[in-house]
């Protein structure tokens, strides 16, 4: 499969105001630089275990999450550093979590794959492929039962489509008209398995429409298109029309986790997608349109670098959870009066 070309003609005007455009760029740069720093820290043995990078896919989280309001909920996967950053979890709390320090957003207990923050209704990364979909259905069910017009955005990879939970969740969300925005991040490979080797029907939107829910493919390398599609879908979901499905066509530039020899794809394919690097693409467009100057880009980079340095400092200064609190929160000690 080759990189899709940007198609702007059939999309509503994303109405990029200058400030907003700068913010989209800033968010993508934050994710990119944050994760580049993570790679360094991983090599230095500061971050351990599994680390799944979102590099190349930034436009999806940044664009899609523009459509969410503070009261909306987000469910993500183990590749969720970007979503967490955009949602507003402070970078230092994410970094501390990656270190396993108790100052982390999940108290150092979840690590990279289980970022969580109830305050921003970020209901977690999840190391279990497909595990987030039923959860999203439940969140949306509660919102519906409690009569709030909120959206639950559920991000998952195209590999999750193969799990039974995908079918079960899509079906029920549609049947009960639950306010779920299904955001499938189709980066073409589930570890080393290309989509066409795991699905009989590779048109994921066709699959989704078979559940009687509206579905559109989106150029996931174009942040403005991601935003426009998500806004349109979220509007429908929020107004009670039931769930929507968006297939973001994107690409992971790095290995599945920290290391893999990537024999399942060609260097040429990677290079072709890299030409459509979402950050370069957007930056170039903004420059072309005279919306942003190179000075302003440098200023964004500098601010982001400062934020990331600070996050590392705070993670470094963070502390390990004391042994005494080992079994704390295994159970809740509260009961309902």
């Amino acid at each position, binding site marked *: 499969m080759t990189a899709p070309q940007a198609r702007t003609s059939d999309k509503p005007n994303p109405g990029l105001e200058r400030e907003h455009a700068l913010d989209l760029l800033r968010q993508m740069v934050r994710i990119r630089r944050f994760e580049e720093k993570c790679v360094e820290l991983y090599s230095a043995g500061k971050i351990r*275990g599994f680390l799944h990078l979102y590099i190349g896919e930034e436009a999806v989280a940044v664009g899609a999450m523009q459509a969410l309001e503070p009261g909306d909920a987000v469910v993500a996967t183990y590749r969720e550093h970007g979503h967490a950053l955009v949602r507003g979890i402070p970078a230092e709390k994410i970094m501390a979590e990656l270190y396993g320090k108790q100052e982390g957003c999940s108290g150092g*207990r979840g690590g990279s794959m289980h970022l969580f923050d109830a305050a921003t209704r970020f209901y977690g990364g999840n190391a279990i492929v497909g595990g987030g979909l039923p959860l999203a259905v439940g969140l949306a069910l509660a919102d519906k039962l409690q009569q709030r017009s909120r959206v639950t955005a559920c991000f998952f990879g195209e590999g999750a489509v193969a799990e039974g939970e995908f079918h079960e969740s899509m079906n029920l969300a549609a049947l009960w008209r639950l306010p779920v925005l299904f955001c499938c991040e189709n980066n073409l490979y589930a570890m080393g398995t290309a989509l066409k080797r795991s699905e009989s029907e590779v048109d994921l939107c066709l699959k989704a429409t078979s559940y009687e829910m509206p579905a559109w493919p989106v150029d996931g390398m174009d942040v403005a298109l991601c935003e426009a599609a998500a806004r349109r879908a979220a509007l429908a979901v929020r107004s009670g029309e039931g769930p929507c499905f968006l297939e973001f066509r994107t690409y992971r530039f790095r290995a599945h986790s920290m290391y893999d020899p990537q024999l399942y794809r060609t260097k040429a394919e990677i290079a072709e997608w890299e030409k459509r690097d979402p950050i370069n693409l957007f930056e170039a467009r903004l420059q072309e349109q005279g919306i942003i100057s190179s000075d302003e880009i440098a200023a964004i980079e500098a601010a982001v670098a400062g934020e990331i340095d600070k996050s590392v400092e705070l993670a470094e200064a963070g502390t390990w959870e004391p042994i005494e609190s080992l079994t704390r929160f295994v159970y809740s000690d509260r009961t309902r009066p």
Partner: protein
Amino acid sequence: MEITYLKAINEALHEEMRRDENVFVMGEDVAELGGAFKVTEGLLDAFGPERVIDTPIAEALIVGAGVGAAMLGMRPVLEMQFGDFISCAFDQIVNTAATLRYRHGGLASCPIVIRAPSGAGVHGALFHSQNPEAWFTRVPGLKVVAPATPYDAKGMLKAAIRDDNPVVYFEHKRLYRSVKEDVPTGDFTVPLGVAQVRRSGDDLSIVTYGGTLHQALEAANIAEREDGISVEVLDLRTLLPLDREAILAAARKTGKVLVVHEDRLTGGIGGEIAAIIGEHAFEYLDAPVRRLAMLDTHNAFSPPLEEFILPNTAKIVAAVRDLWAY
């Protein structure tokens, strides 16, 4: 030839596939990628895509389809990419596979092997660290094995593939590249259900399996050297069915038994072992049976906590001294 634990599993798969054309391998990324840990590397080249099959991410399907194929005479070896995800296939294992032969009055059998890379100590956090063996050791119809050495890894996988019953085969991730041993090149199997004395001793017996065997052996050497305690180490190798005679022999011989496993304490196989000894060798005991296991909590991500909750050599040495002093 000296080979790693990982290579031993790989060789067993090669040899069994050569030996019996009904054997095939199926799982997520087992073919083109050669497995997340490279355990199935080279199989695709040797046997082709009809016998080395990449599946979608669907654990229940992998096991369930394996059961169906097994009913018609195939002998699938099914990989759970991480043992932690075996729970996604739980129903197919405990309801479908385990009861199949019984349910059909002996008219069908279910010769499948489910390989599950398990174990902590690799900073895998909650869902890439677990030792889920005890979920299965109470299910009649299943066999559950957890080899600890390259020789056993190879011989027991071959035996499991040839066995007509569903076998859950736990392979400890930490052992993959860390243990090596001379393994004969010719065909051999290691019988399921038979424990093995790894180290002979007179004062105290450690009963263990899998990842903690190597720590137990180290601890036994330390206790001998520093305290003059002569420690016997029994490697269970198979957890269902348990080798009761070997367990009782170890208890009768030394009168002091320490059970060690990386699975959690509560509900772990150690409780069953203590009960067997209590029921059948009580009069030989000089001390209560002791257990050292992972603490009853979730797998921790923070390195000091992970260290704290898991058994290790130093903790085994301390437990040996403590029990010896009883």
